[in-house]
């Protein structure tokens, strides 16, 4: 029996549809390219520096944590690179290098690895980092202050701050078309609305993000802003302004759809997205902060385990509490 052929044995099924974590990560990065390229085109080398440094730092933190925790090396799955890319896209082009270093540390180590790595993070790691940076160094995340030295041929003021501090009349200089084409200041990869929408549609059609979350988030923002606007158009901006400014689009397609911190059942996905959109506009319109996307999504990340308990009854399952 020495020369008996050995066969590979395992449990069914013996087919796989070919999807993988790595292909998902690389496709998300691919979808982000239009928006990132526009940021680099607008702000030049500093933007490129922030993006690339952020991606590489995130991967290095991941590698360091793999080695410290004696876990398999997981930078190949691209998840750390995606988190780094997201942080880079949310930061202004003039961000100092040490902020990027700290930001990626907060995302990868505090936001992801101490919870157990990929799939175990209760919050979106990139948003954890951005929220902590925002609370720690207000000036860095204030786009008006950070991008003071740029002159790009469109109003060099952050649309949402203008709305907050100068009211609806002051935002008349922003046309929806210009906002869509990226004529606004903000995070490197979060201002080019059209690019983000194209990337988002690509991800939805390929099935890499859950369309229910992205669309319900946008619907939540739109409807809430519409209600505020209808109630008092002199104080509250219209829904299209809210959709096209700040982190709304990157939030809808890239941040709220992060796998591990968002629900998977149909109705919870709709509630999650809609509530995050609702909360975003609520923070913008009556809260203290200029943009509400970061904290709105983080709040709903916390509610995710509870929301996901709303699920359909499995076939053949008896209701016991009837």
């Amino acid at each position: 029996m020495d020369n008996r052929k050995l066969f590979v044995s395992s449990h069914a099924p013996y087919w796989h549809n070919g999807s993988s974590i790595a292909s998902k990560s690389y496709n998300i990065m691919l979808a982000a390219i239009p928006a990132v390229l526009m940021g680099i085109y607008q702000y030049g080398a500093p933007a490129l520096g922030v993006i690339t440094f952020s991606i590489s730092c995130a991967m290095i933190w991941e590698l360091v944590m793999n080695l410290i925790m004696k876990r398999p090396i997981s930078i190949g799955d691209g998840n750390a690179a995606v988190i780094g890319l997201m942080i880079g896209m949310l930061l202004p082009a003039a961000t100092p290098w040490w902020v990027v270093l700290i930001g990626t540390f907060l995302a990868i180590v505090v936001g992801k690895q101490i919870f157990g790595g990929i799939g175990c993070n209760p919050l979106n790691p990139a948003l954890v980092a951005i929220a902590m940076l925002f609370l720690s160094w207000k000036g860095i995340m204030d786009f008006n202050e950070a991008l003071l030295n740029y002159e790009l041929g469109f109003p060099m003021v952050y649309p949402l701050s203008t709305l907050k501090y100068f009211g609806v009349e002051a935002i008349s200089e922003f046309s929806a078309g210009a906002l869509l084409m990226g004529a606004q200041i903000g995070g490197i990869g979060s201002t080019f609305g059209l690019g983000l929408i194209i990337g988002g549609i690509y991800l939805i059609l390929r099935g890499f993000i859950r369309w229910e979350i992205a669309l319900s988030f946008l619907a939540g923002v739109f409807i809430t802003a519409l209600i505020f606007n209808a109630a008092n158009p002199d104080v509250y901006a219209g829904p299209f302004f809210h959709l096209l400014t700040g982190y709304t689009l990157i939030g809808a397609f890239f941040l709220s759809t992060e796998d591990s911190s968002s629900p998977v059942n149909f109705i919870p996905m709709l509630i999650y997205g809609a509530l995050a959109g609702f909360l975003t506009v609520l923070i913008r319109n009556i809260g203290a902060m200029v943009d509400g996307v970061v904290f709105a999504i983080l709040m709903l990340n916390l509610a995710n385990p509870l929301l996901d308990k709303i699920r359909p009854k499995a076939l053949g399952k008896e209701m016991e509490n009837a």
Partner: protein
Amino acid sequence: MIKRPFFGCGKPKLAYAGIDGPEQGDIKDIPVSERAVLFVEAPPSAINDLSFQAGDKIKTGQNLRVSPFSKAAFTSTVTGAISNVAKKKGYLGKPLLSVSIDVTETDEFDEDFARAVQTEEPEETGRYLSELPGAADLNALIHPKTPLETIVVNGMDKDLLVTTQQMIVKSKADDLKEGIEYLKKITGNPKVVLVVPNYLSTEASKSGVEVLTVAPSYPNSLPEMIMKDVLKKVVPAGMDSMSLGVGFISAEGVASLKSAVTEGKPPVAKMVTVIGKDEKTQVVRVRVGTPIHSVLEALQIPMEQGDRLVMGGPMTGRSIYTEEMPILPDTDAIMVQGRDRIVLNGNDPCINCGECIRACPVRIPVNMLVRLLENSQYENAAREYDLLSCIECGLCSYVCEAKIPVFHYIMLGKYELSLMERAEESANG
């Protein structure tokens, strides 16, 4: 291997292999091999007091009790001399005895078989017909725990790429008619329906019973799905269709019954779809008990180190470690997978992508279930996360981005639960 489509944000769509083309028509006969192996489900202790021994002659169709103290019996599918009896374990630890027989070329048929079949005495016929090709467990239909209201003759194949049952419906629809009549006699005249994929409804109507059609997309042919979609009955979690008075038999099983009755000889040939390394299929007719290597040799499919050999289809088959394994009465397919096509499981945890939730036909929260199963929380998994609702289609593993062996975890969970239940029962007396 069917890959995920380029654009795909919904459920996976997997179609069963159809048999519209004429090239499917030729069925290859595999010659009888020199040695045959038959499996009998029997307690391991039976080997100590066997009622036969090595060297005993056995005829085709002869029914032998394994031991005087056990009800376990088998009907031989070959003529020859018993050469060896050994203990084996089947899927999920099922105790088996394997009986090896040195086959003589010309068949001698046992006369008792014809007599027993004609008596239509449930006890007698049940003993002889307990393991027909395509009807591995006819006794469950003859002696049901709940009275049978309906018998579903399943003319659909259980798995992808397999065309065995469809072939029977297409080529032997007349046999089905007589087989169904006999089946009704020995099972107390329940209602019989024939379920076929929608493109075979014309052929199926020759059977003379009610024909119900199903869209040919996976996993519509599994018993629980047929119950839900066609008979509009939901099988409670953890039970089977028999508890609702519905029995299943494959179309081939019915055709076997017909030939057993009209010819008075035991049906010994099993139709098997052989799926080669290039996923081309060939239907063969082969004697039950023939080792798989004889089939593969006849079709010139070489097996090499590192390949995978599967009894059944790509989604639900069981991989085996030796080519010596015989064709069993319920082996509808053999699949050979080249080592370059084997997808290994990953070691990432669940990333909560939700693909399994979309794919699951019975709405199990697979993402939560797999977390519990990974941590051996089997009872909790059954109580909170619907482990027992699983109909075992394998789609969750098929779509898993982290390549977690979800289906394997589920079967392990079910097995561990059954062990716990058994331990509890024996503790309670």
